[in-house]
């Protein structure tokens, strides 16, 4: 098994664990962290393929994904803080009403 195969396999496992976190956990912060884990798994596969094809483009995409992830975290955590102010909870089971 060569390096690229191993790392792509690792990234598939990490992505599945992140999916499991999103499906199993009830805390919005934990779900959010699992999404970060999935983004990181995708980055890992992208860098592995960039090395395999001997090109920089894959690494550029990782750069942009990291930027988008930073923006996503800023907005997402702001949403969680705002929801916590009204509901006094970070559990997604408590967010059953569309009315704010």
């Amino acid at each position, binding site marked *: 098994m*060569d*390096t690229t*195969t*191993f*790392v*792509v*396999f*690792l990234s*598939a*496992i*990490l992505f*599945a*664990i*992140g*999916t*499991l*976190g999103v*499906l*199993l*956990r*009830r*805390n919005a*912060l*934990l779900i*959010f*962290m*699992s999404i*970060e*884990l999935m983004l*990181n798994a995708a*980055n*890992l596969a992208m*860098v592995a393929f960039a*090395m*395999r*094809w*001997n090109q*920089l*483009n894959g*690494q*550029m995409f990782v*750069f942009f994904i*990291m*930027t*988008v992830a*930073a*923006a*996503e*975290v*800023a*907005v997402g955590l*702001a*949403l*969680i*803080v*705002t929801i*916590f102010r009204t509901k006094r909870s*970070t*559990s997604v*089971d408590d967010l059953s009403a569309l009315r704010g």
Partner: protein
Amino acid sequence: MSDLPLLIVLGALSIASALGLLLSRNAIYAALYLVLNFGVGAVIYILLNAPFIAVIQVTVYAGAIMVLFVFVIMLLGAEKLSIEDSSTSFAFQRPLALILAAALLVIAVYVLFMRAGVPQMTNLALVDTSPAAIGLMLFNTYSFPFEVVSILLLVAMVGAVVLTRNK
């Protein structure tokens, strides 16, 4: 490649820290497991000939993003997660989630290795991945996405301020 034993150790660490994130009872511990996972990822990036990505992985992911996470967890006082497991209203979801995640993993491995197949290429001279080369490509080939991303960051900043503002 000669660094495969090192990669196996790093991969085991990475999976272990991801499972720690999945199973931990305390949100702070979960965040620290995620920091460990990102740090291990940075080392893997160095092994994959991506030093610049490794550095911004540490500064942006393990640094900025996780500091934000830990800050919010402590701000909300939401570190104790024991309440969530007492809810039995959706008990069937747990085995179902395990089955679905296993199916996702099997399908991903099947598509990646059986259908698409990782291309077997001979060892070429490795491309220049120094920050200088990345900067050149960023401002030549990818200058338009770079500008779009700057607007995205501005919108996210304004959005975060508007969302958390006290009325």
